[in-house]
């Protein structure tokens, strides 16, 4: 069949999966106590919050009366309707990005995350996530680049020079990557680089003044006060520039490198990229560990095929045989496995963003689940889960389409 027909069919297959995921999340949400649901998914217009079922009566403040805002929230969200109606409402909301609001009592809502992030109470969850998402995407793209650049050549080399030192080294890398927790690797790399450059008290290489080397790698932007040694980035004694709201989200696009370039601060753009390198390495390491074995094994399988023997018999130089014939054909399995590892890819982000103090979606997710019952923010929690699921599904579609493009047998079969 033609390529576009395959794309359409593949995309259509996604719909029941997405509806299924939303159903699973809906089952979880409907198990929550009603008061949590009104707190997270209803936007109050007045000052009374819908997070309590009772408030002091207006007539007699010492007694408790039913909270009218709570009641109107229940009606507005349809929480007293039959479960199927609620399910339909939820699917509709989930598809149109109405994922609720940041609850007033949660850690994100009160601003007590201990990180300096101001209160986000009342903001739409989808808006909040879309503000922090570009940063995570930039981190993810960098990590993906590192993964592809390292695992494919290294895997191919391990297969070609089987059981030689390079194969042993990649085995060690594989095993250690499986077993190393991301926080340990991140902390080790961060501490290691800091001490290699002079210790946590050593003066910064990027900012003059009192900034330290540690702060060159910790945080998504330079920490003020920072008199820049290069360029004229005005993250200086005046603090953050207007287009970088208090150091968390940059406008207009949210991608730090792009925004810095848009505002003409090219050194700052380079700085943000460099700050992403260490976290991307940490995320990539774990994924490379799994991918490396598959690349190696698929390359081994391809190299045992008859057409490779034919190519050698024809007299082609070994390099050509490996690069043109074996390499291309082993790409299929690599891409498939890359698609499979996407869901696991996500696990590293909250941890790495916390270790390196980066402001991405993973960080916001971590703050929505931190602490105890009173600190949780269900809107952000379920919104992030849905968002990441969309991303995984989209990535799988892209991988399948690439696979079909590379291997015509898939399209025709």
């Amino acid at each position, binding site marked *: 069949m033609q390529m576009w027909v395959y794309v359409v069919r593949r995309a259509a297959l996604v719909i029941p999966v997405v509806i299924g*995921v939303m159903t699973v999340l809906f089952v979880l949400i409907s198990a929550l106590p009603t008061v949590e649901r009104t707190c997270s998914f209803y936007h109050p217009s007045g000052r009374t919050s819908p997070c309590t079922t009772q408030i002091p009566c207006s007539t007699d403040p010492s007694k408790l009366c039913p909270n009218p805002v709570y009641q109107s929230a229940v009606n507005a969200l349809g929480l007293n309707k039959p479960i199927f109606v609620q399910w339909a409402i939820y699917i509709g909301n989930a598809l149109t990005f109405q994922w609720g609001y940041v609850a007033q009592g949660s850690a994100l809502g009160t601003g007590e995350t201990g990180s300096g992030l101001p209160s986000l109470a009342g903001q739409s969850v989808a808006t909040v996530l879309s503000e922090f998402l570009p940063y995570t995407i930039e981190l993810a793209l960098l990590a993906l680049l590192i993964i592809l650049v390292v695992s494919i050549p290294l895997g191919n080399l391990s297969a070609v020079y089987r059981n030689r030192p390079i194969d042993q080294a990649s085995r060690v890398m594989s095993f250690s990557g499986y*077993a190393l927790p991301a926080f340990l690797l991140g902390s080790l790399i961060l501490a290691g680089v800091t001490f290699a450059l002079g210790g946590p008290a050593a003066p910064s290489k990027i900012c003059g003044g009192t900034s330290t080397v540690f702060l060159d790698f910790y945080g998504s932007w330079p920490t003020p006060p920072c008199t820049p040694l290069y360029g004229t980035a005005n993250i200086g004694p005046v603090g953050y520039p207007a287009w970088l709201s208090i150091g968390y989200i940059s406008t207009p696009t949210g991608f730090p490198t792009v925004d810095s370039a848009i505002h003409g601060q090219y050194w700052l753009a380079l700085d943000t990229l460099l700050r992403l390198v260490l976290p991307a390495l940490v995320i990539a390491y774990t994924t490379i560990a799994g991918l490396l074995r598959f690349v190696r094994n698929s390359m081994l399988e391809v190299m045992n095929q008859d057409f490779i023997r034919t190519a050698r018999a024809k007299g082609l130089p070994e390099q050509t045989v490996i690069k043109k014939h074996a390499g291309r054909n082993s790409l299929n399995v690599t891409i498939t496995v890359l698609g499979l590892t996407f869901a696991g890819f996500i696990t590293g982000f909250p941890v790495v963003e916390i270790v390196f103090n980066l402001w991405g979606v993973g960080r916001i997710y971590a703050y929505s689940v931190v602490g105890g*019952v009173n600190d949780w923010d269900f809107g952000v929690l379920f919104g992030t889960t849905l968002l990441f699921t969309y991303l995984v599904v989209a990535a799988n579609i892209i991988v399948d389409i690439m696979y079909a493009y590379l291997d015509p047998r898939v399209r025709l079969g």
Partner: protein
Amino acid sequence: MAARYAQYKRTWYFLRRNTLAMVGLAIIILFAAAFVYGLTYPASSSTPVQYCASNGPVPVSPDNPCYDAPYIVCTYPSGTVSPGPGCYQTPPDNPNFIAPTFTLAHGLGAFPFGSLVYPSADLSTSDPLFYNTYTMLEKGTVNSVGLSVLIVATGAGVGLLLGALSGYFGGWIDEIVMRITDIFLSIPAILLVIAVIIVGKSSGLRSFDETLVLIGIAFVVVWWPFYARIVRSQSLVVREQRYVEAAKASGASNGRIIVKHVVPNSVYPVFVQMSLDVGTIPLLLAAITFIGFVLFPYPLIPEWGSVAAAGASILTAVFTECGVKGAVCAVPWWQVAFPGLAIFFFSLSVNFLADGLRDALDPRLRR
């Protein structure tokens, strides 16, 4: 029966010849010994005392805002003023304060690995077992290792059943089960686990036992698709075999065939996957507790990830504050390093063993 026993002996023979797998086995035995020893620790009855950033001693409980506030240990030259919350001057400003140290001989028992930054007011009389990093590691071993084994056992069971049913019957049952596994495999594991546990805890399941059950359910929900897929692909092969045909011809019911023929013959890859998962689950647990999600109240019930999380937040706070404020700081690196290394070695040894098991069970490699 004899044939199966001979099979086990052969598998063990091939496993024995694999050096890495034996190294892994040795390390796992060490961890098992630590696990057993950790079980002998008494549950702490006294409420541990913690020093919060700007207050005096406060009792530790999850509702207290000082509960997990990281605080910085800095020592300042005498005569200087403390620069702010989180930094303590050396005694006599706060005579009860004991800076965390890394010592090999703390007088508290064998193999101490340094003290934690939850010092007690009086190390000798209050519950000193509580605050030693080594103790936290021991208790953490019990929790982490125990949880991993529990989770893998339950998750494998459910997945095995569904996969066998799906593969054996085929047709629309197979389609439906596979679509459902697609759905669950699209949701990233850490997010789904936390979502399930949070929903459970919000509905009131908060005691230790209830949390254990909740964690078990959450991981089963997330993990069964992997096992289901493995078992399904195996049972698709098994159901075409002659002996299944013979069993059907002699009138065996579907249930009997599944239980007696399909499941035992599909189970080898499941063993391999189970042993691999015992290596990956501590990592997931550590990630969950590291990002701040309170599975069990730390430090009452420590977990490798929560010990490391407390250490990491203090580490970064120290690094951030010390350089800027020009103070000499005590960096409690051991609080991050040792739990991390524990996870690393546990996971590594399990991976070695699982790899060896896979090679030993692979018929092609035996010739």
